């Protein structure tokens, strides 16, 4: 059974429709990428999964259970963690408090404060600092660590490389591969197509609120992806 199964999902901002019937599955242990141009609806999709955007009751199943339309704080405690676009570190909290609040409703599992510090030693060194005092890359690590603290069964990542220098992006992805290596099922949004394809088992390409292409990177040609990405 799929860990996450989304069927014909639609999403609206007022009268504006952002998603037009998106169907997408993630199997346990899989690493799935979502690519697509700006405004294609990638963030809206992740936000709908965790209930930050309203969706129909049957539109999404997590581990076979309908989660559509349920409040966000209930959905995430079932075992979904989102690293939101723009990181969204809590500015009034220290680095360590940001991690601890990530584990506020933690499930049992491999991740703990000590293990997150093992993975991100720079966070340990800065544990007493406030969130905004960190560099962009460190904040991104903190946002990832905060999500891990919940011991999620499904990790959602929204553009972790946004606004980071290439060398920092490499660093972030190296650490992500450790996380993925633990068997954490991961669904991530990435603008950098090459990087997305090199990391994932399967990829979905969003275009104007619809899925234009889906498949394993091996089975897709550059031309197909370019066509799906730009809509040419």
């Amino acid at each position, binding site marked *: 059974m799929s860990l996450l199964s989304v069927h014909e999902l639609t999403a609206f901002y007022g009268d504006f429709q952002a998603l037009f019937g998106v169907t997408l599955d993630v199997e346990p242990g899989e690493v799935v990428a979502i690519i697509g141009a700006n405004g294609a609806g990638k963030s809206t999709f992740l936000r709908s999964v*965790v209930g*930050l955007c309203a969706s129909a009751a049957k539109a999404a199943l997590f581990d076979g259970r309908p989660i559509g339309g349920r*409040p*966000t*704080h209930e959905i*995430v*405690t079932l075992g979904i*963690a*989102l690293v*939101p676009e723009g990181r*969204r570190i*809590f*500015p*009034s*909290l220290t680095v360590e*408090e940001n991690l*601890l*609040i*990530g584990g*506020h*409703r933690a499930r049992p599992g491999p991740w703990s404060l000590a293990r997150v510090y093992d993975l991100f030693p720079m966070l340990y060194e800065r544990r007493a600092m406030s969130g*905004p005092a960190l560099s962009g890359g460190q904040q991104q690590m903190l946002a990832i660590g*905060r999500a891990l603290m*919940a011991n999620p069964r499904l990790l959602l990542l929204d553009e972790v490389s946004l606004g980071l220098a290439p060398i920092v992006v490499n660093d972030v992805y190296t650490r992500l591969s450790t996380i993925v290596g633990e068997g954490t099922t991961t669904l991530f949004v990435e603008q950098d197509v090459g990087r997305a394809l090199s990391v994932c088992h399967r990829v979905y390409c969003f275009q104007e609120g619809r899925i234009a292409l889906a498949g394993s990177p091996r089975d897709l040609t550059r031309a197909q992806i370019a066509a799906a990405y730009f809509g040419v």
Partner: protein
Amino acid sequence: MDWMNAVIQGVLLGGLYALFAAGLSLVFGIMRVVNLAHGDFIILAAFLSVVVVGVTGLGPFLSLVIVVPLMGGLGYAVQRGLLARTLDRGVLPPLLVTFGLSVIIQNLLLQIFSADDRRLDAGGISTASIGIAGQLAIGWFPVVVFLAGVLAIAGLQILFTRTALGRAFRATADDQETVRLMGIDNRHTYGLAVAIAFGIVALAGVCLGIRTTFSPDIGPGRLLVAFETVVIGGLGSLWGTLMGGVILGIAHTIGAKLDPAYRELTGHLVFLLVLLARPQGLFAKPVRET
């Protein structure tokens, strides 16, 4: 010696003012809402204590065992049922709704209890005093209230900085949406914050009722004291709120010493001076860029 006495009385009065202000500061700090009915809830709590004392025969201090949870529950209900609907709609709706609450509470109390002055009788402790050198004597009760104020502020400080709930309060104040991603129900968190604020309001109301006479119409005056206390101390600083209460308390007793009619006026002048010299309050942390 008389002046010394006035200063000491003022410091002790500051504990009561800190109790008035703590709830206002808590609600504003977390939700950015000024509860205009704050003073009326203080008076409502005092009347609740009158009822509890009348029905159960408990003294006013022991009545807190019932009044604090009742007010806490009321706070939770007011937040979830009423205030929550006004948030995210700009500054005006919460102000209008709490102003309406203020009017409603005053009139309800007037209907039920009439306009007569009341007092909570705590027996000997309200008049007992400790003699210090010469003519200086301080009352037991003001000391107890001062300690209650210090303990309330210290308790809030510990709650905010050391507990998971306090962390959730601060995170919710930062970012309502992201806090939900942490598995925290932001609406419940807000409800708990107001419940705690109302618990302190209950304590403040009972202390006020033992100290002085009260009637249904004096709530807005307590709101003003609470407001000035918070602003003098600095928003977002709990110890500042205690210090703000002490400063305002001293201003009131010194003013009253000059001439009983100057009591409030001196307080307002100190408040205005602080606003002119340090608009962010005396003990505020540096303002964060957002």
